[in-house]
């Protein structure tokens, strides 16, 4: 099956069928996804798995209602059944709007150029990278007791057609390398994690990059063996570049997604134009960074991705919309309508979300901090968008004493409130970096980038065991 050449007549007929008994927007989403994954653990490539999943989804919007049906069968029978299922669920009983004829297929292959398609590289060669990563991690120290090294590539081809006449094809390749390393000394066990990935091909990786990535993960784990239990209480917190951006993603970004706004389930609802952060803070969601892990040429509703200014010098300037929420709010979609696969309803999601860099040297920020906590790498966290309260685990953290990074600290969590910490940002460096992650929401995982430069939060609660 070549989704780009899928029968446009059948797509049009499916859209018409979906709107037969009412509704005001209908869409067909066709997906063909090929994946390959290799996982090494215990010095052995124990899993090599790959496959192909195809499917089609029909979505019908009627006012604020969404009707969705999908099937693994991408043929006339599957599409007809899905269209019938959504049509049967509409109660309007009046035929929907005239369906605009589908235009020519639109695509934008130049946006994320793939120089080396992963499909052209042998699985055996990919396996060599994984083995090299394992060897490099174990070479860091005798205290490295375990390494899990993974490689994955995906090619997802989608075709999106809707009753507005849009017909969009997007061919997405993503490649990623992950290393997780465990170090042990006596009873103390610590882990370190590092990744490389992008909406790009195999050009992202070579044996040297694989080794360096695994070594960084191993060093994180080894350093933490010397750690002491973290103290508890309020103190200045310096968040490192790269992984530190996870905090902005979780604590603030989710509250900017328009579904949370529409339900009043966000601290940012009704605050457009208001001060929500310190004046030095500007922030973006940028789905169009070339070859970024969170990047696609189009979102999963066929809307081109873009760079959206969400906070400008401390004031709230934008929300992240999918088509449904944009329509409700009378706003333009921002290319943030994303779905994990054809099995998932598109919802507003972040792409690559970040606080814009400042111009300080990161060392100046540390030097200006008499006593505080330096969070080099976060383990992930959870947030309640309604209240903005969040908790983050710190994977790699240090004490700051007299303007210097000193003892590694373990078992720390950062606890706070989204608006509160943005207001308390008082220094931002210029060492901007983006890391790759998978963000979960409503049971859907999508690739996202999180980033920032090193920055300081004047006061934040650290929860530790010391």
């Amino acid at each position: 099956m070549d989704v780009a050449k899928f029968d446009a007549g059948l797509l049009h007929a499916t859209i018409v069928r979906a709107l037969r008994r009412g509704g005001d927007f209908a869409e067909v989403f066709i997906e063909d996804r090929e994946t390959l994954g290799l996982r090494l653990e215990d010095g052995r490539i124990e899993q090599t798995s790959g496959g192909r999943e195809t499917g089609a989804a029909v979505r019908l919007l009627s006012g604020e209602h969404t009707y969705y049906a999908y099937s693994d069968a991408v043929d006339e029978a599957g599409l007809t059944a899905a269209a019938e299922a959504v049509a049967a669920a509409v109660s309007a009983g009046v035929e929907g709007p005239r369906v605009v004829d589908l235009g020519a297929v639109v695509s934008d292959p130049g946006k994320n150029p793939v120089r080396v398609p992963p499909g052209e590289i042998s699985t055996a060669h990919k396996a060599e990278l994984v083995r090299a990563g394992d060897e490099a991690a174990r070479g860091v120290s005798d205290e490295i007791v375990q390494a899990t090294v993974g490689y994955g590539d995906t090619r997802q081809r989608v075709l999106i057609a809707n009753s507005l006449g849009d017909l969009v094809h997007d061919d997405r390749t993503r490649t990623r390398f992950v290393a997780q390393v465990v170090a042990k000394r006596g009873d103390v066990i610590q882990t370190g994690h590092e990744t490389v990935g992008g909406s790009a091909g195999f050009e992202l990786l070579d044996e040297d990059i694989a080794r360096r990535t695994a070594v960084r993960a191993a060093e994180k784990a080894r350093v933490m063996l010397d750690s002491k239990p973290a103290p508890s209480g309020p103190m200045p917190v310096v968040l490192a570049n790269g992984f530190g951006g996870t905090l902005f993603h979780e604590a603030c970004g989710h509250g900017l997604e328009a579904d949370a706004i529409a339900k009043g389930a966000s601290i940012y609802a009704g605050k457009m134009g208001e001060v929500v952060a310190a004046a030095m803070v500007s922030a973006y969601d940028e789905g169009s960074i070339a070859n970024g892990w969170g990047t696609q040429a189009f979102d999963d509703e066929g809307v081109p991705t873009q760079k959206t200014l969400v906070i400008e010098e401390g004031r709230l300037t934008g929300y992240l919309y999918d088509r449904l929420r944009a329509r409700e709010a009378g706003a333009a979609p921002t290319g943030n309508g994303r779905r994990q696969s054809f099995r998932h309803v598109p919802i507003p999601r972040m792409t690559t979300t970040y606080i814009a860099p400042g111009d300080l040297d990161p060392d100046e920020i540390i030097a200006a901090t008499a006593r505080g906590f330096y969070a080099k790498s976060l383990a992930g966290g959870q947030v309640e968008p309604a209240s903005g309260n969040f908790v983050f685990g710190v994977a790699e953290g240090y004490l700051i004493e007299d303007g210097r990074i000193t003892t590694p600290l373990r078992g720390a969590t950062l606890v706070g409130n989204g608006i509160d910490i943005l207001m308390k940002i008082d220094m931002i460096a210029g060492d901007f970096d983006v890391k790759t992650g998978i963000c979960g929401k409503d049971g859907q995982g999508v690739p996202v980038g999180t980033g920032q430069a090193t920055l300081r939060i004047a006061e934040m609660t650290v929860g530790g065991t010391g």
Partner: protein
Amino acid sequence: MFEILDAVLERAKALGAADVEVFGERSTSHRIKVYRQEVEQLTAAQRRGVGVRVFRDGAVGHAYTSDLTDGALDDLVRHALANAAVSDPDEFMALPQPQGEPAAVDPYDPRLASATDEDRIAVALEAEATALAADPRVKTVEDAMYVDGDGEVFIASTAGVRGSFRAGQCYAFAYVLAEEEDQVETGYSYAVGRAVEDLDATFVGAEAAERATRLLGAQKCPSMKAPVILDPFVSAAFFGVLSSALTADAVQKNRSLFAGREGERVAGELLELVDDGTLPDGLDSAPFDGEGVPCGRTPLITGGVLQGFLYDTYTARKAGRTSTGNGMRGGYSSLPGVRPSNLVVAGPVTPLDDIIAGMERGVLVTDAVGIHSGANPISGEFSVGISGVLIENGKLTTPVREVTLAGDIVGMLTSIRALGDDARWVPGGSVYTPSVVIDGMAIGGT
């Protein structure tokens, strides 16, 4: 579906593979969300596909497809063989052999398939309406949902494993926002069952509202070392994280804090922890696991003493024993991995009211954020953010939030001194647990 499985086995044999296992899946599911007494989202789904594992000299290759045409099945077998050529051999990796009769449990109730969309929508509507009516401070029910899944799985192998079963479950869920004087608090509740008629949506709405409103006015409390009561939702989340350290996979890969501690005291003397895939009302009960091995009952902790671990075929062979039937699959596209089926936390119980009445100072923990990120199942250290209600002189007094609870898992298990009389099923890992009372926890507040 068996015709397709057999066709895959035939193709694999023709290409020279001797040890082959095929897993097939065919399912339907529904998901309904209502908002302000109208259907916000209705999803109807059909899913089907097959996955194949090829074993060759101790190396395993896996491939899957949702395309069941002849050409796609050819590709499937070829990919699995190619993947087996890349994996490293391991003397313990081998095709699972038939291991006795399937467990006598039927995880399906035909009433599930006879429900209509109207029946399903009614559940979500009732949960939302009850929550909104419960208290004027409930401003929004962010999620009021009905979800179900009705699926058949099939397995066949060249070793003679052959079986299928149908399983169904459904649940109602409500996530409520309560608001007072600019403070927003949240609460949720579930009901689970095998048929729509089993779900008590009124209970779900009322409980979610109660859990949100009782946190209104919450503030930080002083830091202290005090006993805590983890309610069933919080307890289930903790035991869910803990359970990954009780798999043979974690033990054999040096990732478990319980490695080498069989026979030792690792928990309070009253604690029983059992994995049981054969319970009639267990959400994850099944006649056999993702490798065709019968599901069973495996004691993990008895009288506070560690009894053993969970095994799939590979980890069992490596340990020189038999699989406990815990080779679980997420679906046709996933490989089996060692995971719990239903986890049951048991032991002598005390009425919850008596536990609270006997506590001079402590915290009833009703929500914990960051258990999955703030708990390290390898080292056992954890630090999570909690909300709940302060207990003073035997009474529930003021709500608390934005405080942390920190410690290490074994220390916490050892300090379990009582279990409540309020055991229930909590989905999202399928745990059956009462409230759990733990002494001397570090609470970080002001």
